């Protein structure tokens, strides 16, 4: 019984983890059709913000929850102004530009901080006990944060004026522009928001993963596949993609080991896209966000 609960907990955590690293990419891809290959580096920058800030004596919670999204969000806005805004409507060119950006960011961080940076942080919060099993309290916290983050993004899109304008621009940019909406500003804010969410995710993962300039590469493929499998809807798509792929990965990893777990995730994504060529939300929950 304890084992079942412990395994279920890990399964949920695996799904939340996948959703957390994918959400920022989904916002940018879903709203603007920009494939951000520098997504992994945005996560890395979030992690670096936390490591550098805590080394300078900042409280870890402030570093993770405020500084990481703030810094990466600002970087996102700068990147949008300098680079992405020239490339709207040219999805393939954004591939090249963001790939260049990803190399640039890795090179920049390596040049400034060296190949690796010493850290002193460890996951805050204690340990949860389940009979013979134990799990990190911080993992439970991360599951909670992921849920809260989804609700917050939902509320922003559904209930605020910004969200309304953003959704309108996403559906029909010409019409919104004709109605007096500054689409360039909407795009700038959206990209910044996506970057901030990514920065937050990177910051939150900093205490449980290694933080290195090249670590982004381990996330980008998984996040990319999850978002595309999910389809065009930002929240429902990411959630559905994460639950399906993360669930399959977790189950196979527990039964057969992590390599087969990864392969199972990839095979599931292929079969899914063959059956639903527009992703999960291309077929189900079409009206959702």
């Amino acid at each position, binding site marked *: 019984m304890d*084992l079942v609960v412990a395994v279920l907990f890990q399964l949920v*955590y695996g799904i939340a983890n996948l959703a957390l690293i994918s959400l920022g990419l989904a916002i940018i891809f879903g709203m603007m059709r920009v494939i951000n290959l520098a997504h992994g580096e945005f996560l890395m920058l979030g992690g670096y913000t936390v490591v550098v800030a805590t080394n300078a004596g900042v409280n870890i919670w402030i570093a993770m929850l405020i500084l990481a999204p703030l810094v990466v969000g600002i970087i996102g806005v700068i990147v949008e102004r300098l680079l992405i805004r020239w490339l709207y409507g040219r999805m393939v060119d954004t591939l090249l530009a963001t790939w260049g950006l990803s190399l640039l960011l890795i090179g920049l961080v390596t040049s400034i901080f060296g190949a*690796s940076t010493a850290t002193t942080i460890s996951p805050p919060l204690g340990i949860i006990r389940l009979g013979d099993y134990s799990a990190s309290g911080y993992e439970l916290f991360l599951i909670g944060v992921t849920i809260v983050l989804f609700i917050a993004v939902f509320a922003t899109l559904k209930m605020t004026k910004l969200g309304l304008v953003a959704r309108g621009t996403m559906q029909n940019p010409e019409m919104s522009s004709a109605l007096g909406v500054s689409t360039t500003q909407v795009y700038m804010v959206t990209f910044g928001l996506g970057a901030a969410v990514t920065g937050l995710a990177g910051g939150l993962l900093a205490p449980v993963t290694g933080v290195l300039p*090249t670590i982004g*590469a381990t*996330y980008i493929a998984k996040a990319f596949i999850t978002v595309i499998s999910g389809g065009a809807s930002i929240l429902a798509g990411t959630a559905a993609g994460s639950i399906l792929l993360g669930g399959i990965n977790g189950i196979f990893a527990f039964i057969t080991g992590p390599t087969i777990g990864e392969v199972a995730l990839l095979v599931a994504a292929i079969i899914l896209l063959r059956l639903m060529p527009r992703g999960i939300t291309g077929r189900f929950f079409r009206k959702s966000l």
Partner: protein
Amino acid sequence: MTLSRRNFVMGTTAIALTAPATIGRAQTDNIKFASILDLSGGLDIYGAPMAETTKMAIEDINAAGGLLGREVELTMYDAQSTIQFYTQYATQAAAGDKAHTVHAGITSASREAIRPTLARFKTLYFYNTQYEGGVCDYNNFCTGSTPAQTVAKVVPYAMNKWGKKVYIVAADYNYGQITAQWMQKFVAENGGETLDVEFFPLDVTNFGPTINKIQTAKPDMVISALVGGAHVSFYRQYAAAGMLKEIPIASTTFGVGNEQKLISAEEGNGIIASYGYFEGADNPVNTAFLERLTAKLGADRPVMNELAIRSYEGAMLWAEAVKAAGTADRDPVIEALRSGLTYNGPSGPVTIDAQTNHCSMNVYIGELQDQTWNIVESFENQPPADTQLVCDLVANPNQSTFLFENGLAAAGIE
């Protein structure tokens, strides 16, 4: 007319490709030393400290008047964590630069890309990395430690301390798989039991399911051969689940990329590892070396690990051999190296073993406390016993093989 203008593209390419061959390659009287390491990309955590100590070795040699009255000229190539660049730069160093020796390679894959190229151009090759053992090549000197030197020491030490039931986690590639085999062998030899062996792709960052499995198996200890930046997550998640205090960890890989600095003190305290070098090695050469390094690079210099020290000692072994041979030509230098040459380096005396072209060296067991390794036990002059089982270059010098490519069958382990 238009078309002839268009071929501008091809023409420029051709000229551009010629450029490195003709520019700045003036023949000098210097002795040429080439280094190929990954200084960018995913493997730079290993390559960067190795490059620093290589530079320092060449500076030290030149400061002492060079070799045979000639200056040693260092050419460094960055293979950018890509195998094809190893072949390419090895060709360039051997056939283009006419280097007298090439010190190169981090992963076994990179070494296997370089080895045939340098053998073809008859260029002396040093591989200064700890690895799974088994290279048997007259032209190739492997100065790093192998499993019979380190795994054989850390397994009994940890089992005496913690108990007989062992759970093994390892990186899912050649080094991890072969090292896991050695671990099982030494666990069995010491009367222990391996409960399970699990392999992880190099980009896994979520170790939750495995931690559950370890909790189910209830071993006395975990032995790890996890590698690289992503796998640092294992140690953090393991400590976060409160496991490190209950089931301790021993490792043969943790720390070789200075991973102890990537996790906090309480996440790493008590981890045990075995290498041919720790900064705490107690000898005057080491103390002086570290002082000079700090003076050169400042207080935030990289922590020295086995890879970095071997790069220094590898260069120094070669320099000693050149001095002994009285020439930098390959064949006399190889003979000088194989005559049982010893160099007193920061890790202690390092002696070339003529049977295998590997090194006999001191081996240390370290325990991690507050991000620093404290040496708890040391073993002097350990031979590369695993490679000796399959390789005899004295009896049969004309070979260049890698016997462990076939797993451990060659060493008699199933």
